[in-house]
């Protein structure tokens, strides 16, 4: 099994999760993070609303799913096809990281391995 983690723009979460469902992804979860990469942050007010500072980090959302190895490309394609903003490829659209998962257990049944995913 592999774990696929996609760091995406928060406003794309609905689209990406829909695409995952359509791609047959059995389950996933997501959470908000603060990210920093090439995308430069924004100017924000600090203190009592008269001074500004640049915040280099931006809000992102991580969507993670654990799937059988053979779904890898399908899932990646689903994410690539749904996570891009309106501009078709802007800095800050995010990343996907893939890593190996050794084992999985379904709490309800105690099932192991791919059957548990």
């Amino acid at each position: 099994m592999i774990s696929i983690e996609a760091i995406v723009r928060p406003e794309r979460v609905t689209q990406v999760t829909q695409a995952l469902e359509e791609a047959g992804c059995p389950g996933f979860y997501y959470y908000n993070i603060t990210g920093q990469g090439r995308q430069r942050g924004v100017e924000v007010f600090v203190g009592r609303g008269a001074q500004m500072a640049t915040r280099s980090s931006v809000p992102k959302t991580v969507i993670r799913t654990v799937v059988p190895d053979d779904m890898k490309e399908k899932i990646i394609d689903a994410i690539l096809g749904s996570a891009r903003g309106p501009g078709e490829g802007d800095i800050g659209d995010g990343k996907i990281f893939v890593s190996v998962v050794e084992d999985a257990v379904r709490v309800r049944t105690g099932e192991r391995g791919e059957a548990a995913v």
Partner: protein
Amino acid sequence: MDSGSVAWMLTASALVLFMTPGLAFFYGGLARSRNVVSTIMLSFISMAVVSVVWVLWGYSLAFGEGNALIGDLSKIGLKDIGINDLSGEIPELLFVVFQMMFAIITPALITGAFVERFKFTTYLVFLVIWVTVVYAPIAHWVWAGEGWLFKAGALDFAGGTVVHINAGVAAVAAALLLGKRRKLGGEPGNVPYVIIGAGILWFGWFGFNAGSGLAANGLAVSAFLVTNTAAAAAALTWGVLTLIQSKRMSAVGVATGAVAGLVAITPASGYVGVMGALAIGLGAGVLCYFAVRLLPKTGLDDALGVFAVHGVGGIWGALATGIFATVAIGGTAGLIDGNPGQMVTQVIAVAATGGYSFVASLIILKVLDVIPGLGLRASERDEDQGLDVAAHGERAFVSDGAD
């Protein structure tokens, strides 16, 4: 006793009391999120401490007959004030109550300079001493019949000197002695808190200013109108300045601007008309905006800009009262109405109250700092951890599941 004035002054007193929780949220929203509770508490606890001090001895020191500098102990514990004894058109006890609310919020204003690092237990002691030694005398000077500034004809309708300049310079004294926070502030932790706080302050300020004539009459109405006008003008000014600065209008800036306008109109509210109020609000917006931008460059960590807003705004308001006062409203002419002498009195009032407050606050804080077991500053570890947990054993927000 005029029941209409009693009705209004009861309401006004309630409104001013409500300003303190409003301030708690205003300041609480400006702090970083692990210091929300502690910042709120710095204001809120003043309601508990100062209310008690006021009825026990504070009122007597401020408004007991005494001399030009301070009242006496004749009204300690409010003794011998009957429920139907009058002070003008209203019961004296109502005057006691109304004034109490001012004594509560003034030290709370100072705490904007304390946030994120002041030791809470020391603060409790500070509250008692400061109200006694700084607030009560200044209130006496300006508002008691025997007070020397009152006699000198200084105009301060609702507390520009007594409340705002006083708090503003005490904040400077505190920032000097406290030193910088280990981590300076960034974005406010909770903007909606700042806005609801500002909303409550604006609402309550009608009691503050329109109550300061102690009657439900035309002067109260005028004070109400100019209060609103100055708040609006300053909020708008500040908002437009942020728009010019960055093409974005800071909500916190607008809220701060409103407060700056309210501060500046406070001493003037019984003396100026609506055009004066517009000018005062505009001036407060500009002056305090630049003060908030520039004062941090001094290196002083007046964390929430108390001096920039209440000090600068208060001084501007006190002087502006001398400029814009008009006989048609409050019976006294200012500079524009051809009475330049009033400006001199106003400058004296600013200098005297500001000077006394600064020196006395500095001494009080220095003494508290060196008393064993007290001390001004929380430990580094507590400061890093955030004072909510360290000083209050509480976190502001606890969510289910992972918390």
